[in-house]
């Protein structure tokens, strides 16, 4: 639905016939439509004042794109979180068809996921020359990032560069059309203040060092050339830049998903059983934090017992208010693993404010992607819940826009 304000160079009741073309070619979100009136008012000065154009500026309320920022160090657009998120909205996210096969972008019906590595100002060679890592802000073009995210948010398509992770080069740009939901994923979504202000919601995925090491072992150990030493050296070498440039962004995030080693198994360092904390900022517009039983109270909950039998090491929840970098937050924490479907549904039925549309939706989403990493623990659970909260946020934002009363124009 669009609210259109009509500006005319002369009075409306002359001859501004608005014959709308049924199909316009200006793209999905169109800001201005120009009509020519057939007014025959002549003047001695020539035709400049006769039948001038009526310019109709449409502030199409449904073209407002919702922008979500996701800070993660795990590659772009292909991460599990992205897949879960796009799945909540329905449809599979795929790279743009017919384009560069090395594109990092993912597109589904409702969402477009952009990889912020595409805004590298220096390619691999350039970074080597200057001695900067990809984590360094000097390797990234924040001006362009801001311009393009702003454009997409206001309904204008952009030609976005492509950073090719295989060749390490910047490839020719691809056209990105403004989607309903734009997700910007990468190392620096909240680094630049201007970009931060464009975000409707932001998430930071905070993986602890022990878990990062365990995951990278799983990722890299089978590769020729890698060893425990090389994996460890790579993490250590990147740590200073990571701590200086990436980590500080978590204070700005509306939700932080913190992944830590479990406390249920003493001395465990496998990184298989995880303790995951969902740190949710209070007072964020359109976002009501998830809670357990009694909002604002503090409690620990072990669902395993008489009604629910769990296998080792079980499941333990914690919920309570806290402060995080000076912000009021609520923290929901899960330690342990789901082994069976009924454990998952039992837990789901005790959580509140999870923004599901039907009972069991979280469980259903988790089952849908049972082969994804984290499907049996807090990472999958909280990623799925955050996905549902984002859907809720999106619906709230779009509903509030269409509820704005139409402005009548007066000539």
């Amino acid at each position, binding site marked *: 639905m669009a609210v259109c304000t009509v500006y005319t160079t002369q009075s409306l009741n002359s001859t501004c016939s608005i014959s709308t073309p049924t199909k316009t070619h200006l793209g999905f979100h169109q800001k201005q439509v120009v009509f020519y009136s057939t007014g025959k008012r002549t003047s001695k000065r020539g035709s400049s004042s006769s039948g001038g154009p009526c310019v109709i500026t449409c502030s199409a309320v449904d073209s407002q794109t919702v922008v979500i920022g996701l800070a993660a160090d795990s590659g772009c657009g292909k991460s599990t979180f992205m897949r879960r998120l796009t799945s909540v909205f329905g449809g599979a996210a795929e790279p743009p068809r017919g384009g560069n096969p090395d594109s990092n972008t993912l597109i589904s019906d409702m969402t477009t996921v952009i990889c912020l590595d595409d805004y590298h100002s220096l390619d691999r060679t350039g970074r080597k020359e200057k001695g900067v890592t990809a984590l360094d802000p000097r390797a990234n073009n924040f001006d362009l990032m801001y311009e393009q995210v702003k454009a997409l948010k206001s309904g204008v398509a952009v030609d976005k560069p492509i950073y090719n992770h295989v060749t390490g080069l910047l490839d020719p740009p691809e056209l990105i059309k403004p989607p309903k939901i734009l997700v910007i994923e990468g190392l620096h979504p909240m680094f630049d203040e201007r970009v931060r202000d464009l975000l409707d919601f932001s998430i930071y995925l905070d993986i602890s060092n022990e878990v990062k090491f365990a995951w990278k072992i799983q990722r890299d150990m089978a590769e020729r050339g890698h060893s425990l030493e090389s994996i460890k*050296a790579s993490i250590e070498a990147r740590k200073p830049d990571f701590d200086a440039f990436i980590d500080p962004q978590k204070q700005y995030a509306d939700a932080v998903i913190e992944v830590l080693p479990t406390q249920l198994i003493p001395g465990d360092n496998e990184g298989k059983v995880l303790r995951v904390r969902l740190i949710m900022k209070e007072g964020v517009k359109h976002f009501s934090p998830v809670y357990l039983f009694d909002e604002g109270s503090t409690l620990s909950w072990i669902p395993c017992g008489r009604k629910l039998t769990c296998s080792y090491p079980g499941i333990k929840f914690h919920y309570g208010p806290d402060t995080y970098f000076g912000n009021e937050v609520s923290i929901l924490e899960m330690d342990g693993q789901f082994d069976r479907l009924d454990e998952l549904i039992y837990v789901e039925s005790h959580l509140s404010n999870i923004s599901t549309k039907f009972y069991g939706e979280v469980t259903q989403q988790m089952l849908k992607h049972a*082969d994804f990493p984290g499907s049996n623990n807090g990472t999958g659970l909280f990623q799925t819940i955050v996905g549902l909260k984002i859907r809720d946020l999106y619906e709230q934002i779009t509903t509030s826009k269409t509820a704005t009363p139409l402005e009548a124009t007066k000539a």
Partner: protein
Amino acid sequence: MATLTFHSLTGNLERIPASCSCSNPRMSASFHCNSRGEKRVSRMKVKAMGAAKYKGTQMREKQLAEMIEKKVTEAKEVCEGDETSDECKVAWDEVEEVSQAKADLRLRLEIEKKDPLEFFCQENPETEECRVYED
């Protein structure tokens, strides 16, 4: 058909995961105890083919694997002098980049079961890259 090569590796013992099962069904690390009772990692290298459909993708996998190996060697060399130097940081960052790129490709092939060249090859079936890989 997979060929298996075993390498044994002395790792940093306190940090070795007791079991390292990956989401990737083709690969796993197993452990055994040597005569001194120390835990050693046996790394199973699986050269299994089958997930990549097109030759171009298979070439790319190979290319990335070679790059990882090359860049790890480079990083070790560069860092020998000064571990805290910029060159050293950048070298290991490159290792991370290509490792992640390879992992992303693998994830795409195995979990999504889609070859990244799928759409390209539908339009251009005649190109060298789009020859269907046969085992």
